[in-house]
């Protein structure tokens, strides 16, 4: 039995953050039904937002991202522009514990699927809405994607080189927002275990991003200091940067905190004469002269590959890890031993490689059981078995473009 076996979840909205939220629940054993329609498909089916737009796979409605973000889910197509579609959606709510949606604020209400209405159908429902700015406030109706809410959240401003632009951050923010949503959902499920009551959760994606810079916010409210970009730098440690290695665009991150680590690094470098220079004699001086320090260290690191440096320096007790790229991660011995990659057989895409769920739970592990569903793949099962509609009724609803 998995931890969330028996928990039934509905997903509406077709954006990445919502899909990630319910993916977490599905990997832990919840039954997740993704509600979309051929008129309004999941964003990963119609575009690969932002990057590599030309790379949408041959099958027009399945991409590797659709697969990746919808593992273990069931999929129905329901036309929410049709009153009968809304009636069926409510019947799905009745058999659900959790509803996650990421339409714009107000859309669910206008369709007759707002929390106050659904609560009458299912009194202990947990409903979580994800939007860019939350349900309330003067900017509640503003629209945006991950790069916009990471900009508005303040993460983009604090990422980059001091003399360069702010940094656009994309997918990781969607995943972070989805994970935050899954966390809030679990908290609500535990509350329901104890009290029997459901609740409504209004989640703002830009606020989720702002929570990741909470200490910088306090620097401003406490000291009036408005922080900016610091590249790879640290306020205390030096060396603390990525250094060039043998090969094209290969880098190793090295961070030194203590005097012991510094002597170990010097020793690994063969104690060249510059290391005994007064400019680098202690932590404070190394921090003060970090640019010159970086020049010397770069000369040394350039002679080795990043893997050679990692093993050599780690053996000496120095924190050194390559800035890995996708190819290296996929063949790295450590990650391979921990089972990073899993291959699933997708009905239209064939063999697809996905990444195994990060948290390793000893008695209720996350588990990938099925690939991401195709559009409406589970219409028969869900409308027939779960809602008890006859084959004739389902066929009629398809004719009337309610199920479509």
């Amino acid at each position: 039995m998995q931890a969330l076996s028996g928990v039934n979840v509905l997903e509406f909205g077709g954006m990445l953050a919502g899909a990630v939220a319910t993916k977490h629940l599905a990997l832990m054993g919840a039954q997740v039904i993704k509600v979309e329609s051929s008129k309004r498909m999941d964003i990963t089916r119609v575009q690969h937002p932002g990057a590599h737009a030309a790379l949408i796979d041959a099958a027009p409605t399945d991409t590797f991202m659709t697969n990746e973000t919808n593992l273990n889910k069931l999929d129905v197509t329901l036309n929410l522009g049709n009153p009968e579609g809304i009636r069926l959606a409510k019947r799905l709510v009745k058999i659900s514990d959790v509803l996650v949606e990421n339409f714009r604020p107000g859309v669910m209400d206008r369709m007759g699927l707002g929390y106050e209405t659904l609560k009458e159908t299912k009194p202990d429902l947990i409903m979580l809405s994800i939007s860019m700015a939350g349900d309330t406030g003067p900017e509640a109706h503003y629209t945006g994607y991950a790069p916009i809410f990471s900009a508005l959240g303040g993460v983009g401003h604090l990422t980059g080189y001091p003399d360069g632009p702010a940094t656009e951050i994309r997918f990781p923010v969607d995943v972070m927002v989805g994970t935050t949503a899954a966390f809030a959902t679990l908290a609500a499920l535990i509350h329901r275990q104890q009290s029997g009551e459901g609740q409504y959760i209004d989640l703002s994606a830009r606020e989720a991003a702002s929570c990741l810079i909470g200490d910088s916010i306090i620097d401003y409210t406490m000291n009036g200091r408005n922080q900016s970009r610091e590249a790879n730098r640290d306020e205390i440690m030096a060396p603390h940067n990525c250094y060039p290695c043998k090969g094209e665009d290969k880098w190793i991150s090295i961070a030194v905190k203590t005097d012991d680590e510094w002597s170990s690094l010097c020793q690994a470098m063969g104690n060249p004469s510059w290391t005994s220079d007064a400019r680098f004699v202690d932590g404070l001086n190394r921090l003060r002269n970090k640019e010159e320090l970086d020049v010397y260290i770069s000369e040394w690191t350039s002679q080795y590959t990043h893997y050679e440096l990692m093993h050599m320096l780690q053996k000496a007790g120095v924190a050194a890890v390559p800035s890995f790229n996708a190819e290296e991660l996929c063949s790295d011995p450590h990650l391979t031993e921990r089972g990073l990659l899993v291959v699933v057989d997708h009905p239209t895409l064939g063999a697809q490689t996905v990444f195994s769920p990060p948290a390793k739970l000893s008695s209720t592990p996350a588990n990938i059981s099925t690939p991401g569903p195709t559009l409406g793949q589970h219409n028969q099962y869900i409308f027939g078995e779960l809602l008890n509609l006859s084959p004739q009724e389902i066929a009629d609803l398809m004719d009337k473009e309610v199920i479509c």
Partner: protein
Amino acid sequence: MVAGPYCTKLLADLGAEVTKIEEPGIGDESRSRGPFLNEIPHPERSGLFFYLNTNKLGITLNLGRAQGRDVFRQLVRETDVLVEDRAPRALDSIGLGYDSLRQLNSRLVMTSITPFGQTGPYKDYKAYPLNTFHSCGEGYVTPGHNPFPNRPPLKQGRYVGEYEVGIQSALATLVGLYHQRMTGLGQYIDISKQEALIGISTAELSFYPNLGLIPTRGTRGYTVGGIMPCKDGFVEICIYSEQDWEGLVKLMDEPEWAKKEKFKDIPSRAEYSAEVQQLLMDWLMQHTMEDIYQRGQKLKVPIGAYYSPRDLLNSPQLKSRGFFADLDHSMIGKVTCATAPYRCSKTPWRAERAAPLLGEHNETIYHMRLGYSKEDLAKMRGLGII
């Protein structure tokens, strides 16, 4: 230092009673990190420590001493969840590993957060937040648009990666707790920071095993928009549809160039991307971030401003949602801080107390909860146990 405390902060902020155990006289590492009040280092005046430990109780305990470990075992008997971020097997080596603790409390959910997890060839490798971020693949592609091709890849700003690990750890811990409440059984949760951060990066990492492409800092880009400079900062413009483009043209007051044949549709604008971007930038440089954001959004164009911490504090949207709260701290005074991104109708974020001083709740926990007398406490203090 950040991921573990942030994990339990998320639980404390929603009502869990979290007791933070620190080493006597030294305390959590984040106490030695800024921002400090008035920029003067002091272990009770770190804004980082403050943010990571709101609503927690704080005690000191020396696990290097047998008596300290006995007290720790007593605490574990009474607890639902233990979150720790020491090196792999560090607790086992002093007899406090999961296998020992579960004998005392079969309901215990124990979450261990380490750079590379509890198993595998790198499990004992050392990594600070810089290293763990670069270990996940997202550093290699940061910053996108490659503004300086010869410069090194970057981590995300400040401790962003650590917070992301903290959220995932909190989610896994609650899954364990949900299961515990159903079955009465605890379990052990192994969180590798590297894998948690790979988890946020998979959308782009997936290009490699599925399409054979290796994303780099140069492979991200928009044909129209993306991050662009303006008069007083940067804006983010996402033009995905024809409707978005029309809104953008309206925002620029319908310039003649935008009506040219060669910019008529998405493919042609992609072909003349460099030209479009230059003309768009010329317009943006005449306007302020806030003006572009507000007017653009009113025209339904997906546009955002690159806000700094100060901008967040001035945002009418965040103010109207009560995103910031004031907490009083005995050594810092009033601190305005971010609360939580969710408004839960039945279980709201709470502002019960500021971060604890070192050992602030020793008496509450040891005397009132575990029943040690005041004399015992004095003795333990004298022996350096607490």
